[in-house]
């Protein structure tokens, strides 16, 4: 009884708002609602799917997220390997939490002030005498590779994953397994690669995937730190939704719906793979 009531509350408070939202997005994308729409049409879907902008943007978002998460996983694992004791006690354990409280817009702002051509780092390098003027400072912000975006998200995600790895390490009692490996004659390197890393990877795979999707949907960071082309998916949606041409609005809903469907398909694929591997 209690469980049924709970599920009902869950349905009402979580699923219904979601479905209402999705219904609105789909209806808008097919021209069924919307002040400037005139009834059912697939024109908006065609306009989006047949144009390379959407696909480019999808690919670019995926690239940024993959690059970011690769670095985050490696760095977090390295921090765990090198500083495990310091992460639970002492001053480092206090400082590592700080980036967790930064919202993306503030992190992007700080990154810009640090790494742009006229940013703090460039000033320091100039004062040391390595560059003669700010034009010689490399392009790290608004560059073709999205380095600024990747850096910012790496900075925000690394503490999170370091702490996550630490929890997995303790919960799965990896230390004991490592010691077992040592007694069996493994070198520290072997123990790390064959025992620790695989467990960490498998136990946090899902979180890594989720964070990947989160980075793919970034808005404030690419807006300030990226280029107008290629463009990540969220800035593309907002451009269609809010820029000068009101007639572009339905396309924003098409892009969100198409993006959602693609991710769902991909998510289903991953799930079924995991399931078969476990079976």
């Amino acid at each position, binding site marked *: 009884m209690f469980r049924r009531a*709970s599920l009902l509350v869950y349905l009402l408070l979580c699923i219904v708002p979601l479905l*209402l939202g999705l219904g609105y997005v789909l209806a808008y994308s097919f021209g069924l609602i919307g002040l400037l729409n005139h009834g059912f049409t697939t024109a908006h879907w065609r306009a989006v799917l047949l144009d390379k902008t959407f696909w480019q943007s999808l690919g670019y978002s995926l690239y940024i997220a993959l690059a970011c998460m690769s670095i985050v996983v490696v760095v977090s694992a390295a921090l765990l390997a090198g500083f495990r004791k310091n992460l639970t006690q002492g001053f480092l354990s206090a400082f*590592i939490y700080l980036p967790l409280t930064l919202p993306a817009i503030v992190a992007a702002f700080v990154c810009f002030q640090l790494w742009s051509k006229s940013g703090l780092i460039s000033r320091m390098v100039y004062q040391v005498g390595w560059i003669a003027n700010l034009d010689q400072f490399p392009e790290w912000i608004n560059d073709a590779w999205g380095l600024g975006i990747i850096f910012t998200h790496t900075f925000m995600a690394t503490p999170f994953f370091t702490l996550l790895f630490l929890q997995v390490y303790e919960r799965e009692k990896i230390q004991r397994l490592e010691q077992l490996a040592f007694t069996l004659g493994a070198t520290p390197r072997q123990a790390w690669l064959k025992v620790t890393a695989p467990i960490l990877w498998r136990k946090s795979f899902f979180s890594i995937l989720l964070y990947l999707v989160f980075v793919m949907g970034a808005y404030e960071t690419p807006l300030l730190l990226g280029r107008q082309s290629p463009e990540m998916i969220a800035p593309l*949606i907002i451009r269609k939704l809010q820029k000068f041409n009101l007639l572009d609005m339905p396309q924003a809903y098409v892009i969100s719906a198409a993006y959602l469907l693609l991710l769902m398909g991909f998510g289903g694929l991953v799930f079924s793979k995991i399931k078969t591997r476990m079976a």
Partner: protein
Amino acid sequence: MKKTLLFPAILLAFIFGFPLLFLLLLSFGQQWPYPSILPLHWSEETWQKIAWEKRIGNGLGLSLLISLSVGSIASILSLLLAKAVAYSPNQRWWLGGAYLLYLVSPVVLAASWQFYFLRLGWAGQPLGVWLAQFFITLPFGVIFFNSFWNEQQRSLEHLVATLGGTPWQTFWRVSFPLARGPLLICFFQSFLISWFEYGLTALIGVGKVQTLPLMVYQFIGEANIFYAALASCLLLIPPLLLLWFNRRFVFIER
């Protein structure tokens, strides 16, 4: 601590703490032309102009009220709901819904909800903003607590039941104490989601429900980096204070 690790650890701590220090410094600055490393003038004028405005105080109060209540109610309720979801035979489908919410672009989600909130007459009111924020934090909590209600927990409950404990006793005496650590984390994360929420608050609140982020976010996007730094500080201080008082917000210490 091993001597060899001390220096790298200090360096790391510096890297993680630097953005906050940098923001605080900039908020007192005036004029920062290339290539000087520090701003040319220092002044508390920016703080006086923005931070001591009366409406900032009101915004801070309203934001704290909303975020603390959203955070605490959402995390407690999601603990209960997550149990039903986790024990349900259709767990995967139920949970899928919660995940789905985070794949929709927040602005698009806000735009679609705005329609329904307007219909219901909740737009432009603190209650509407509260509900909208609640709707995005609750699924987060359910996902968060899903792993809490695992096999181990279930067998523990069975054990209590066989020893004659009522469901209420099981929850109150066994599950809840175990959930205290995760609850704190969930509360803090939900608090943060609510605290930094801008788009949803602006749309559902029609700009009238003036939370602190709503008031100071616009400064971050503007030309004056010193105002932006100050606005960032204002946004960061409350979560940092919470963190200061209770480090267990971010992870369980054993």
